[in-house]
């Protein structure tokens, strides 16, 4: 498949901030093309700073970041980098530039100076992918939070990126908006083959990823498939995180019933493990 993003001893300190531990501390990370990576970590662990390195919004103070083999410090290829790796932020209101939905989605293709037919085709493709095509003539500020965030995602997809980085895209949304947005993101990954890197505080969203990375004070503390990462509940707790509810429940019960499996992830698996336990105890 090849690597989408690769960092080598990536180190970053915000300009003007006091010397001390850098915000990102010698990070080595490779994200494969087509994968879905979730990034977790407590407040201030450096997740957003890391994300901004992936499309050259920030440049490393030390070390390297490669996007599709392009070094992000290469100024001549800035547009190539930005167009390959799209970025979606927490607050949809602050990402939507134009009043009308379709005009906003057209913003990036217009910036790339694409011909009108191509721009129109991409707007339609992007809005259909996030299921917002019927709203193309609506005013963005009258939409619900989840709809606005999907418009913001469409605005990125219209660049035809190979990778999308989302920084807590669901943090400001209600449960319905959160579900809609997550569904759209998963569709991008599974149907469109776009590499997804999603920062989130919601464990049930991270469960959907192929790979979970936990950040701690500018370093990568844990890295692996969700099942493996969430099985290490004690370690997660020390990093200020909690495993998804079913995993946390089984983990606690395991103190009394060590025969329970260690790698339970979903509700269905928890139910299965518990009924097996009941059957055994009842005997």
């Amino acid at each position, binding site marked *: 498949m090849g690597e989408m993003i690769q960092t080598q001893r990536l180190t970053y300190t915000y300009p003007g901030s006091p010397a001390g531990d850098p915000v990102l501390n010698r990070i080595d990370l490779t994200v494969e093309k087509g994968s879905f990576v979730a990034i977790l970590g407590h407040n201030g662990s450096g997740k957003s700073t890391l994300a901004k390195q992936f499309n050259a919004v920030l440049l490393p103070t030390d070390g390297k970041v490669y996007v599709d083999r392009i070094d992000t410090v290469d100024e001549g290829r800035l547009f190539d980098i930005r167009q390959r790796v799209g970025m979606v932020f927490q607050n949809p209101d602050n990402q939507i530039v134009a009043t009308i939905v379709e005009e906003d989605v057209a913003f990036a293709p*217009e*910036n790339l100076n694409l011909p*009108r037919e191509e721009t129109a085709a991409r707007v339609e493709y992007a809005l259909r992918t996030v299921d917002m095509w019927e709203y193309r003539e609506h005013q963005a500020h009258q939409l619900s939070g989840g709809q606005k965030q999907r418009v913001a995602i469409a605005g990125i997809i219209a*660049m035809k990126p190979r990778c999308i980085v989302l920084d807590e895209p669901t943090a400001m949304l209600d449960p319905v908006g959160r579900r809609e947005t997550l569904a759209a993101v998963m569709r991008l990954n599974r149907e469109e083959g776009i590499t997804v890197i999603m920062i989130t505080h919601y464990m049930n969203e991270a469960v959907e990823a192929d790979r979970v990375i936990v950040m701690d004070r500018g370093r990568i503390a844990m890295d692996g498939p969700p099942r493996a990462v969430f099985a290490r509940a004690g370690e997660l707790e020390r990093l200020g995180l909690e495993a998804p509810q079913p995993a946390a429940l089984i983990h606690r019960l395991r103190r009394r019933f060590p025969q329970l499996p260690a790698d339970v992830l979903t509700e269905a698996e928890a139910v299965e493990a518990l009924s097996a336990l009941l059957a055994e105890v009842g005997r």
Partner: protein
Amino acid sequence: MNVTLGQYFPGHSLTHRTDPRVKLVLEVLFIAELFMVKRYAGFLLMGALLALVVHNSKIPLWALWRGLRRLLLILAFTSLLNLFYTDGRELFTIWRLTATWEGLHAALFTILRISMLIVGTSLLTFTTSPIMLTDALERLLAPLKKLRVPVGELAMMMTIALRFIPVLSEETAKIMSAQKARGADFESGSVFQRARALIPILVPLFVSAFRRADELAVAMECRCYDSAMPRSRLKEMRMKRADYLILTGMLLLIPAILMGTNRLWI
């Protein structure tokens, strides 16, 4: 809070589809004419023209009324001033104030001018999306680029301003009710006291506006925006035959109304 400024009612009527540059030029001509018409017959014809456009655009009347309603007080006040403070033949006298025939006409003219001005400009923003409007302005002002006026950047600023008017007015309302819940009082006291009561609203509003601007700038960069680079457009602006017809028709009709009616006695 109801914001009509920059509001857009999507549609596909002839008024909606007319080239925004044509609309903008005709709007300016229309406003200039409003201030030069001196006869009721002129206002009647201009009003008929406006009614025709309203009918064609299918803009709901309540939306136009909402724009007018806010100016009702000012209109009433200036009409009263006109009525009593214009010299001329006496109409009637209350106490020591004498209303004159000339004053009555001046008052009616003011009401007609201002309300037709509001309806005319509302029609433009109601039937033209903000992007098209700023695009049209950018193209009409393009010659100024030679004088190093940053026309493209100004148009982008206007687009963003129009986009954020509803966002910020919603936010203002939210902050105001939050401060009211803490006992803030915006309605009583001297002008000075009331102005001071606004500080706890303005400070958080500005802080949030700056944060938004910061985030928006990063988001725009992420979408490959660079003011120095040429940009294409989703909606191409090309004058069609209908646009030329409307433009020439109106360029003849509007001055004709003015010259024809100003000679009449009414």
